[in-house]
C-alpha cells in the first residue's frame, strides 16, 4: 500500500514538474553535501593520545569531541561535559558528563570511558598527553555521568588540556581492539566518523547519525586535502574544488577581501612568533654577546620596530606583541607594554656594555616567513650597531642545534595553548623541554608554579604580571608578534566561527546551494 502511494505521489510530482508547476513541499529530501577543506599540511597520527601536530587538531574538531571546548574569549564551555567543579583545596576536579552520548561504534561515552581515556593518555607508550596530565593521580567514577580527577597538587591549566587533545575521548572498545594502530581507524564521538585516509592525499569523514548535537550538523561528508603550497591551495579554492582553506598566504588577503565570491577571516592566534636567545643553554651562551649581558639583549629588542616587521613580513596580517600572549588576552601583563623602537638608547646600552658592535648569528628555518623575519631583523639591528649573521638552517637541523644549545639566537614560533601556562612553563621553567634559551631562575620557577595553583583569573593575572616583570627583563625570548590565522572560504559558506585556536568547528556550518 505504501509503495503504491509513494509511486503515485512520485508520478504526480513528475507530471506537475513536467507541466512547469512549482510546488512548495515540506520535508523534500536534501541533496547530500560535502564540505571540502584545504589543509596546509598532512596531519600526523589520528589518535588524540599520540597526535602532535596543529593541523591534526583541525581534523579532530570534526572527528573527536572533547570534554570542554573554548569560545571566542578563551572561556571554557561544555562539550562532552556539562559542568565542572573544583574541590576547595583545588586538588580534585569533578566533571558532570552529557548523558546519552555514544561513540561512533555505538559504545556509551560515560564515566568509565572517561576514566579509560585519561588513563590511556597517561600510560600509553609514546603518549604526547602524559605531560599535560602529569598532576592527575587517578580518576574516580562517581556514577555513570560523573567523574572526579584527583591531582597531586592544584593545577589550573588542566581545564585547558581537557579543552584540547587530552580531553578527547575515544571508544575504549575500539582502542583496546586496535592498540597502537588505533590511528588507522579512529573511533571517537564527534559529529563525523572516520571513513578513510590516503596518506598525503585525503581524509574522509562521514556524518555520524547518533551525534548528540546532530541538529547543528549540515553536511554529509567532510574531506580534508593537504596542499602545502599556499598558491596551489588558493587556486583550488578559486577553481571551486575547495570550500574552505586554512592558512591562506598573507599576500593574497587584500585581493580576496575585494572578491565577493569569497569571505575571509583573520583571527589573532594564541601562539606567538619570537626570537629565542641562548642565555644559558650551553657553553656557547658565554661567547654569545646577547647571552652574556642583559643590556645587549635589551639593546637588541630596542633596535626592533615590531610594527615594521609585521608590515614587511606578514603584510600587516599579525598583531605586534612583546609577551607570550597577545595584548588582547586577559592575561596580558599591562605593566610591561610593548617597548617602542629606540635606536639611540640601544646604542647607548651597547656602549655601556662595552660592545658597540656585537656580532651574533641568527638561526632561522628555511621557510619564507622565517627568512623574511631574519632579514628585517638584521637590517633593523644593524642600525643600532649589531652585526647579525643569518644562519639559514633546515627545520629538523635547527631543532637539533637548538636542543644542543648550539646557537646564538633562533627565530622560532609557537602555535600556542588556550591557557598562558602552555605558552610559558615549558619555555621558561628550569630544564623544561622547550627551554632552548636555558633560563633557570628559581624566583621565576616559583612564580610559574604559583600560577599553576591559582584558579581565580584576577589572582593569576597578578602572578603573570610578576612573571612578566622578571622574564621580560631577562629576555630569554624576544617576542615579536602574534600571527593571524588567515582563512578564505566560499561566500556560500555560513556559520564560520572565528576561534583563537585557529581550528575550524564544523557544527553550525552551512553551504548555500
Amino acid at each position, binding site marked *: 500500500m505504501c509503495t503504491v502511494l509513494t509511486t503515485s505521489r512520485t508520478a504526480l510530482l513528475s507530471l506537475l514538474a513536467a507541466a512547469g508547476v512549482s510546488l512548495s513541499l515540506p520535508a523534500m529530501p536534501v541533496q547530500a553535501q560535502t564540505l571540502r577543506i584545504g589543509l596546509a599540511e*598532512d596531519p*600526523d*597520527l589520528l589518535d588524540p593520545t599520540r*597526535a*602532535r*601536530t*596543529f593541523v591534526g587538531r583541525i581534523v579532530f574538531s570534526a572527528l573527536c569531541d572533547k570534554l570542554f571546548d573554548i569560545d571566542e574569549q578563551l572561556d571554557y564551555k561544555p562539550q562532552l561535559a556539562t559542568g565542572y567543579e573544583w574541590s576547595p583545596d583545588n586538588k580534585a576536579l569533578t566533571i558532570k558528563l552529557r548523558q546519552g552520548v555514544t561513540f561512533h561504534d555505538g559504545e556509551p561515552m560515560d564515566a568509565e570511558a572517561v576514566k579509560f581515556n585519561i588513563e590511556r593518555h597517561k600510560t600509553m*607508550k*609514546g*603518549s*604526547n598527553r*602524559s*605531560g599535560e596530565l602529569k598532576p592527575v593521580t587517578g580518576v574516580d567514577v562517581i556514577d555513570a555521568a560523573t567523574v572526579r580527577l584527583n591531582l597531586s597538587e592544584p593545577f589550573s591549566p588542566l581545564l585547558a588540556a581537557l579543552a584540547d587533545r587530552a580531553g578527547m575521548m575515544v571508544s575504549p572498545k575500539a582502542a583496546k581492539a586496535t592498540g*597502537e*594502530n588505533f*590511528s*588507522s581507524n579512529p573511533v571517537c564521538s564527534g559529529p563525523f566518523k572516520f571513513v578513510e585516509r*590516503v*596518506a*598525503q*592525499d585525503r581524509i574522509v569523514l562521514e556524518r555520524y547519525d547518533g551525534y548528540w548535537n546532530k541538529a547543528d550538523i549540515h553536511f554529509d561528508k567532510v574531506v580534508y*586535502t*593537504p*596542499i*602545502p*603550497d599556499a*598558491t*596551489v591551495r588558493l*587556486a*583550488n579554492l*578559486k*577553481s*571551486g*574544488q575547495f570550500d574552505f582553506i586554512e592558512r591562506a598566504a598573507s599576500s593574497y588577503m587584500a585581493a580576496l577581501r575585494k572578491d565577493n565570491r569569497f569571505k575571509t577571516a583573520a583571527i589573532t592566534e594564541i601562539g606567538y612568533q619570537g626570537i629565542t636567545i641562548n642565555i644559558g643553554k650551553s657553553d656557547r651562551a658565554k661567547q654569545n654577546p646577547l647571552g652574556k649581558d642583559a643590556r645587549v639583549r635589551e639593546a637588541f629588542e630596542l633596535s626592533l620596530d615590531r610594527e615594521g616587521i609585521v608590515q614587511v613580513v606578514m603584510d600587516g596580517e599579525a598583531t605586534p606583541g612583546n609577551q607570550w600572549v597577545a595584548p588582547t588576552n586577559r592575561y596580558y601583563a599591562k605593566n610591561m607594554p610593548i617597548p617602542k623602537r629606540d635606536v639611540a638608547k640601544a646604542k647607548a646600552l651597547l656602549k655601556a656594555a662595552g660592545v658597540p658592535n656585537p656580532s651574533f648569528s641568527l638561526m632561522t628555518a628555511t621557510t619564507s616567513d622565517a627568512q623574511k623575519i631574519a632579514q628585517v631583523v638584521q637590517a633593523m639591528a644593524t642600525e643600532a650597531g649589531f652585526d647579525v649573521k643569518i644562519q639559514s638552517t*633546515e*627545520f*629538523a*637541523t635547527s*631543532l*637539533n642545534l637548538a*636542543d644542543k644549545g648550539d646557537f646564538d639566537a633562533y627565530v622560532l614560533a*609557537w*602555535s600556542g595553548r588556550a591557557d598562558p601556562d602552555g605558552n610559558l612553563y*615549558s619555555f621558561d621553567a628550569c630544564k623544561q*623541554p*622547550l627551554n632552548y634559551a636555558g633560563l633557570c631562575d628559581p624566583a621565576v620557577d616559583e612564580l610559574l608554579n604559583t600560577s599553576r595553583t591559582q584558579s581565580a583569573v584576577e589572582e593569576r593575572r597578578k602572578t603573570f604580571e610578576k612573571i612578566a616583570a622578571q622574564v621580560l627583563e631577562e629576555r630569554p625570548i624576544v617576542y615579536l608578534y602574534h600571527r593571524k590565522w588567515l582563512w578564505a572560504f566560499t561566500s556560500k559558506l555560513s556559520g564560520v566561527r572565528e576561534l583563537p585556536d585557529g581550528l575550524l568547528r564544523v557544527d553550525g556550518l552551512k553551504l548555500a546551494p
Partner: protein
Amino acid sequence: MTTYLIRRIATILPTLVFVTMLIFGLQQLLPGDPALVLAGEEQDPQVIAYLRERMHLDEPLPMQYLYWVGGVLQGDLGESIRSQQPVLELILQKLPVTVELAVLAMLIALLIGIPAGIVSAVRQGTAWDYAANGFALWGLSMPNFWLGILMILLFSVHLGWLPASGYVEPWVDPVANLKAMLMPAFVLGTNVAAVLMRHTRSAMLQVMNADYVRTARAKGLSRRVVILRHALRNALTPVITLGALELGTLLSGAVLTEQVFTIPGFGKLIVDSVFNRDYAVVQGVVLVTGTAYILLNLLADIAYVIVNPRLRS
C-alpha cells in the same frame, strides 16, 4: 644472448648491496635528530625516548643497518613513524600513481619529442626545424614548478577546464583520472620531450647521410619508407637507451611536479619523509627507486640487443 643476460643480471646483485649501504650511509649524514622532529611541538622527553627506542636510534650504526637489511630481505621495509603505515603498503599505494604519471609523461614526451626530432632533421634549416628547436629550448629551460603554476592558473582558475590538483584513482573514475593527470603529465613530459627531440634530430641527421640510406633511396623506395623503416630504426637505438634513463629522470622530476599538483605519489612521499626524518620511508622509497633504475637499465640493454642484432653474438 642468454650468457649476456646472465652476466648482466649477475652484476645487479652487488650493485643492489652497494645501493643499500649508500642509502643507509647517506641518510646518517643528514643532520638533525629524527626523534626530535617526530616528537612534535611538545618535545616531551618520554616521547623522544620512546621514538629513539622504536627507531633503534640508540643502537650502533651497523646494528641499525642490519635491522633494516634483515627486514628488507624478509620483505619488511619497516613502518612509517609519522603515519604508522607499513612502508611497503605506502610504496604500493604511491608507486602506481607515480608510475602512471611517469608513463603518461613519457607518452607525451614520445608523441612530441620523436616526431619533432624527425621533422626537424628531415626539414633541416626550415621554419619547422627552427620551431622544433625553439620548443626544445623552451622545454629544457622552463622550470617544472613554474610551468605547473602557470598552467593551474590558466586551465583551472581562469578557464575551469581541469582540476587544479588532486588525484582520482583510474578505477574510480577514468575520465576524472585523466583530467587530473593531464597537466602534471604535460609539465613533467615537456623536459623529456625536449631532450628526446634533440637526440632524435642529431641521430637522424647522422643516419640520413649514411650509405645504406643513400642505397635505399637509390633503390627507389619512397621517402616515407626510407625515413621510417631504414633511417629511424637505426637512429632510435641511442634514443631507446636515453628513453630508459629519462624514465628514471621522470621519477625524480615527479618530486617537484607532485608537490605542485598535490599528486599523492612517490615524489611527494619522499620529500615529506625527508623533512619529517621518517627514516624507514626514505630508505624504502630510495631502495625501490634505485632498484627500479637498475632494472630499467637492464631492460634498456636488452632492448638494445633486440634492436641491434650485431650485439647478440
